[in-house]
């Protein structure tokens, strides 16, 4: 099969690779780049575990052809922390006990980041809306919603 050359920014770093035609971004990230933070949940857009940001917008990497991110910026959970410092969302998730098995967590964090980037003071309903494409099997969502709201509050306190 012919391979397509592909270049994009991955968490602020330039990457160049060759992908098979039709390969999705989730596979490219996990298997070719080795970034295991986006998770494979369903491979068909139903669970949100594979959520990443492309040019700051939330996308399901399992439904995104790798070739379409050429020249664009992809952010995954792996790039969320700043060196040894966890992102306020990550700290809030820990403090609110917002993860149990943790499988949904990377996608939840990216969906939450997309929300707070465009709306730093969301209402509870806006948080619910923002994570409504993400399934969590363990937490009952409540602690996740509380964590996003807490991170928003701490962000406003710092600003």
């Amino acid at each position, binding site marked *: 099969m012919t391979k397509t050359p592909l270049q994009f920014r991955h968490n602020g770093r330039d990457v160049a690779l060759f992908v098979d035609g039709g390969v999705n971004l989730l596979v490219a990230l996990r298997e070719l780049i080795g970034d295991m933070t986006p998770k494979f949940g369903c491979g*068909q857009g*139903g669970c949100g575990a594979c959520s990443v940001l492309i040019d700051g917008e939330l996308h399901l990497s399992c439904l995104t052809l790798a070739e379409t991110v050429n020249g664009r910026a992809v952010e995954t959970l792996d790039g969320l922390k700043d060196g040894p410092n966890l992102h306020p969302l990550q700290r809030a998730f820990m403090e609110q*006990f917002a*993860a*149990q098995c943790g499988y949904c967590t990377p996608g939840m964090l990216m969906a939450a980041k997309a929300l707070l980037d465009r709306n730093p003071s969301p209402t509870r309903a806006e948080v619910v809306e923002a994570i409504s494409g993400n399934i969590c099997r363990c937490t009952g969502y409540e602690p996740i919603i509380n964590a996003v709201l807490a991170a928003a509050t701490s962000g406003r306190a710092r600003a």
Partner: protein
Amino acid sequence: MAKHRGRGIASVNYPIGMNLGGDPSQALVHSNPSGKFTVSLSSIDLGQGMKSVTRQICAETLGVPVEDVYVDTADSDTGPHCMGSFASRGTHRVGNAVMAAAKEARGVMMEAAAEELEVNAADLDTDGRGNIHVKGAPHRSISTKDVAIAAQFKQGKTISGRGIFLVPLSEVNPETGEMSPATCYAHACLVAEVEVDDETGEVAMVRMDSAYELGRALNPRLVEQQLVGGAWMGISHALFETPEPYYPDPAHGPRDFVEYLMPGPGDICPHDIAVLERPAADGPFGAKGPGEMCANPVLPAVANAIFNAVGVRMDELPITPEKVLRAIKAQGGARPQARR
């Protein structure tokens, strides 16, 4: 066409563990030369907190800081046998096994410390901060790290312990059917309030109020996390999830998350929880365990709330809009019951 509110209640008496040929779990504890301890298990932590709670139990029993204990688990090649993480048995069965192993290890640790301090082991105590001292004379002390080093490099002792906790098989009396399948029971009571749309058959959760009695809550935040998440799963079982198709042919069964429905973040409701602690006589530090019981009372409470709202008795799960509508139609319309 209207939306009707109803309230339902359910109580649960939940056996901890199971009774299939006996119910054992094992644990091993050993010290490392650094004075830290490793607990070897093969029990699974799938987010419910098995590692945290066994770590606490081990640290408390040994008398060392919780930071000094590491739990290595989930690999049945390297950990001793465990029946598994199910039947709400983890904290109770595995916790007891860890406690037994840690007790044995503590005994060796105190002997080794006694040899170093040249006193009788019975006169020693731990301070929970990583030191062992002579009772009543805290200045005559040695760190657990120095004891571990002395035991391994001078005395030639392993500071280690083995533990098993077994609830033996309870035979059924063939005459009466009597048996004692569990040694302790946890309890729950939950009130669910729902809103039923008699035009669409949809059931929306309005709120839940519950009380759970689960022995001593060894880690209250983890218990709360279990109860909040478990109740959601109860809603999911009551109203959404089924591997069975809506038609008799299994080929019509759900294949993915689009067809196998689960509630999303917009389908949950406020839930007020009270945790009651009545320590179990045979539980580790009195614990029973939240486990499966988190989800169980939600199902009958929701079914009862639906009856209270529209007067139909739903006896098949999940209670889908289609089933609710058919039942309402069969009785000739919604018949709201007296508010409770």
